């Protein structure tokens, strides 16, 4: 039963959960104030509510609140100049603490509950984490349980006769189960609403980014010192999730680890790679040359500080969540985030061609590349040593294809080089790439890529280093997607090769794959099963809640519904035709149709029929709208018949017997005089018995035949379905009234 203590605990828990939610999105306050709130709640429950020792005096409370609030507001608004919503959340916290130490009444409980709701709203503005979603659900559950207890307590105290509300100490398990069911119902209905509420095609539904919340990805700037990428290779933080589809919209899983291209680095000088930029050469990545087969990537990129975005090369079309395309740097083919892109997380779709070459449509053609000389440039101080080293591997008269093959094999397959994340140099006086090739012979992908690019350049092959990500954690749950983390960062090389059809870009990855995979697998210790669940939940959270927009809605909800109806209805005539011609021997086609959505359609039609028959039966029969009109009466009969059929199969209630009110009233009048109709007696026999009894008394003798007359009319209406005329109705009323009066006198 209801317990006031448990109810109070529910109110406090609700407030504390709201504080946790607020804190999750609050980067500005280092103090973990939810703990302070929990402490205050426990103190209030013990000292104020249970032992009644600690109260803020009523006359002092408003002034105290005003003074502290004023100081607090002045201080907070001085600190928060841009985000003015967060201080409101803090102010609510203060008000709640003050309310904790007041004598409670209904109004104050309402204040606490409503303020906790407002806090959750404020937190919703600042949060986008999955953990906040969990807190939100917990808050909803606790708030609903508390609200339910509150309603019962108030009703009990409102109608308590003399004594106070009856708090009982038994643990309200049933109420808890009931509230859990209510919470799940609410969550289910809320999610359905959330998913089907139409979004405008061009509107971006995302998260308000009040705080920065952006991570810095080392290795993706304009200038990168060699080895810088190694710092993020040991991080397990998520960068993006990628869902792949082929040109027919089916799930696509590449056989090898895909390379998510990031920034292209063309210029090398003393251990630093630099991107060659040209702001005038940015163009929209939209409706470029496409091939018959392509891969569609739906990418959710976490907020990063750099402007680069990632994807498979060569891409020919892109679309962000707001409908705008991405940008492409024509000089080096880097995909860029345009200024029109929403802040924070970026959700975009990228369509990429599949083929042997990675020529990016829109990028300057390899043969006529404006900066071809940059791609062949080797610093003078290492040029001679490098040339000498390459000569030991590649014969002088080797073609460019052969050069590429031999150098690639040398780094990747010869076994002379090993993969490690350890950062060390054997000889700090020489160039780190030369040190890697000549002395150390171990390093991470950045060294391998730099070594290959520079060696190719010594033989006149234009090459550049690409920083991006390779592979990712493949998640088998839900949508089946890649989770790309910082540890999946990778460097590889793009070089220009001459073929009979012309010059083309090819992608070369000189890093030993197996060794790299082993190292990547060691980073992050969570079991893969839990990791998959976490990633799937996170993916669902971002896809279906945080970044759920018109595009996603069409794909996930309206598209399948439209397809279902189109396909099932299209198949209906064919199925009906087959059914008509069936020899009742093979029903495989029927089973197939039922399995492919026919069952749902049948259930839907049945449900519609039940509702229709219920409505027809209720409105036309029970409420007497059918009257004498033949069409409506036929419809009413059909509805009642259908309802009876459905009732037989337990699909709905039986149709109500039409109740004849005047007969009910007659029975009521007689029952008030202790004349009860026996179940074995018909209404007519009962009326005759009553008539005999009424004749015995002179007062009631004049009305002794009224029951029989009323019963006759009842038979006519009930079984003959012939309604009474206006005069007959009036007569029945008069008879009932005089019978009632006579019985009172008797």
């Amino acid at each position, binding site marked *: 039963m209801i317990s006031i203590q448990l109810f109070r605990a529910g109110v406090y828990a609700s407030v504390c959960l709201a504080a946790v939610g607020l804190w999750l999105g609050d980067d500005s306050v280092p103090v973990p104030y939810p703990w302070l709130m929990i402490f205050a709640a426990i103190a209030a429950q013990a000292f104020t509510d249970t032992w009644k020792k600690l109260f803020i005096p009523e006359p002092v409370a408003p002034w105290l609140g005003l003074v502290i609030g004023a100081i607090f507001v002045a201080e907070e608004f001085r600190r928060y100049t841009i985000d003015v919503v967060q201080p409101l959340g803090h102010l609510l916290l203060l008000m709640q603490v003050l309310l904790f130490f007041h004598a409670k009444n209904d109004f104050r409980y309402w204040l606490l509950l409503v303020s906790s709701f407002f806090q959750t709203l404020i937190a919703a503005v600042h949060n986008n984490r999955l953990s906040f979603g969990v807190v939100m659900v917990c808050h909803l559950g606790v708030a609903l349980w508390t609200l339910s207890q509150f309603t019962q307590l108030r009703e009990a105290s409102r109608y308590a006769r003399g004594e106070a509300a009856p708090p009982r100490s038994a643990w309200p398990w049933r109420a808890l189960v009931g509230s859990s069911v209510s919470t799940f119902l609410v969550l289910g209905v809320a999610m359905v609403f959330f998913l089907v509420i139409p979004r405008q095609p061009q509107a971006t539904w995302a998260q308000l980014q009040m705080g920065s919340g952006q991570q810095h990805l080392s290795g993706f700037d304009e200038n990168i010192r060699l080895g810088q990428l190694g710092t993020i290779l040991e991080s397990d933080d998520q960068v993006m999730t990628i869902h792949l589809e082929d040109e027919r919209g089916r799930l696509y899983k590449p056989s090898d680890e895909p390379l998510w291209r990031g920034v292209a680095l063309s210029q090398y000088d003393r251990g630093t790679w630099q991107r060659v930029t040209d702001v005038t050469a940015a163009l929209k990545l939209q409706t470029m040359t496409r091939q018959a087969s392509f891969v569609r990537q739906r990418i959710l990129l976490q907020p990063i500080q750099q402007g680069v975005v990632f994807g498979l090369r060569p891409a020919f079309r892109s679309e962000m969540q707001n409908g705008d395309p991405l940008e492409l740097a024509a000089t080096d083919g880097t995909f860029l985030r345009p200024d029109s892109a929403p802040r924070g997380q970026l959700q975009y779709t990228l369509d990429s061609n599949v083929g042997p070459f990675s020529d990016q449509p829109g990028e300057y053609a390899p043969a006529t590349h404006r900066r071809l000389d940059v791609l062949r440039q080797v610093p003078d101080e290492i040029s001679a040593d490098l040339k000498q080293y390459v000569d030991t591997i590649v014969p002088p008269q080797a073609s460019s294809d052969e050069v590429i093959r031999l150098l690639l094999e040398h780094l990747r397959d010869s076994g002379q080089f090993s993969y490690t994340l350890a950062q060390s140099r054997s000889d700090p006086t020489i160039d780190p790439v030369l040190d890697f090739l000549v002395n150390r012979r171990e390093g991470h992908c950045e060294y391998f890529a730099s070594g290959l690019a520079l060696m190719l350049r010594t033989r006149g092959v234009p090459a550049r280093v690409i920083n991006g990500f390779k592979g990712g954690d493949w998640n088998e749950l839900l949508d089946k997607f890649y989770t790309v983390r910082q540890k999946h960062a990778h460097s590889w090389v793009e070089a220009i090769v001459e073929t009979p059809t012309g010059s083309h870009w090819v992608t070369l990855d000189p890093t030993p794959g197996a060794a790299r995979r082993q190292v990547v697998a060691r980073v992050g210790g969570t079991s893969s099963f839990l990791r998959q669940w976490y990633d799937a939940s996170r993916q669902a959270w971002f896809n279906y809640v945080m970044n759920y927009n018109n595009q996603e809605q069409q794909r996930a909800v309206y598209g399948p519904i439209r397809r279902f109806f189109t396909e099932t209805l299209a198949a209906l005539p064919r199925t009906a035709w087959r059914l008509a011609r069936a020899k009742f021997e093979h029903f495989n086609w029927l089973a197939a149709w039922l399995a492919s959505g026919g069952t749902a359609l049948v259930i839907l039609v049945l449900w519609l029929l039940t509702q229709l028959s219920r409505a027809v039966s209720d409105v036309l029969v*029970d409420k007497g709208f059918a009257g004498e009109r033949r069409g409506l009466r036929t419809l009413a009969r059909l509805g009642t018949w259908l309802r009876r059929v459905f009732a037989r199969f337990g699909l709905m209630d039986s149709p109500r017997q039409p109740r004849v009110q005047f007969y009910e*009233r007659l029975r*009521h009048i007689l029952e008030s005089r202790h004349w009860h109709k026996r179940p074995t007696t018909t209404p007519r026999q009962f009326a005759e018995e009553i008539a005999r009894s009424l004749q015995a008394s002179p007062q009631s003798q004049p009305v002794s035949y009224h029951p029989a007359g009323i019963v006759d009319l009842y038979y006519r209406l009930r079984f003959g379905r012939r309604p009474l005329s206006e005069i007959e109705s009036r007569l029945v009323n008069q008879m009932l009234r005089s019978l009632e009066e006579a019985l009172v006198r008797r």
Partner: protein
Amino acid sequence: MGSETNSDSSSRPARVVRRRLNVTFEGTCAFALTGWVLASAFLTHASLILLAFCAWVAILIVSAALTWTNLRRVRATRRLPDHAVAGRPTRIECTVHNDRWAGTARAIVLANRVQPAVGEVPPSIYVPAVAARGERTERIELTLPHRGRFRFEPLETTSRFPFGFLERRLAIGSPEELLVYPRLGHIARRFFEVEREQHPHQEGRRPDRATAGMEYHGLHEFRAGDSPRWIHWPTSARRGRLMVKEFEARRNRDVALLLEPWLPAAADDRDRALLELAVSFAATLCVELCRRQGLHVVLGIAGKEPVLRHGQSSVRLLHELLEPLALVEGTDEPQWERLLHELPPAWTARMRITAISSRPLHLASHQGAAKAAALKKWRRLARRLMEVDVGSSALRDLFELH
């Protein structure tokens, strides 16, 4: 939100079916809050705000569904007593039946709406929970302030469970009526002594016991409650079924109470209070007389429509006497002549008569009666009459209202 009244088109509804789903004050606030969250969501395009809006919509929908379901297949019945006495607590028994096979019905309020209203809030009973396929009976004590016929509207079942945003009201059944007898009081012994002094011809009679003072009247078939002592065996043997002797009280035990419900045309509160006092006095006297055995009690009310009730003193007679007293209305044209006309001369010749009114009567010099045809009877009655004016100070010591 919506209401539905089920009535037969062919006659006026006696059985009332009302189902309503109302939005409470808290619910109105919740709706307003939901609208505000929706506006915020569409202004900011923030997914989580939209989710919060959807959660609120879901709460309201689930709340409506659960509030509706909470009273599904729940019915309430009420047992009213056969009668009540004004000013005394009356116990009303209400039972809630939960006919569902699963699901406890919670936080149910049963409201008894009474016409004329008793207090500002209808007397209500709170039922915390009724288990599935179970029932729970609660009682409420209700003090009806005055006599008359009280109409109890169909028992109204209300629930705001689970969140208090919506309230479902359900009233199914027929209105019931409860007859409330006049307020009773205490009559001092002194009054009866005074009465005896007013009727000197009755003095010296020994109080009768059993059949002493009764006259043999006839035979009737044995009924439950008849004393076996009075079985007339020879007749029983002859007829083959038990016959008992029937006695009739002697006429010298006849007592008549005549009430004049006087209320002037321009009545004020005092006049009405005096009328009520007169009715209460008559009712209390009826109770006292019906307690005694062997009396033939006559009650005559000289209202707009004269009423005459009589019978052997018994509980049944008491109810028959209190019923017209409960319903009597004040008048400034008391119909003494018609009442007198209905009184059989045999009674007026022998019985002790007490006339009660809220004004000095002086029936012996009643002008209207003097002109009447039954002048002789009137004069005879007036000689045997004791008049009680409830407005006089003499009665204050003799009668006290509870």
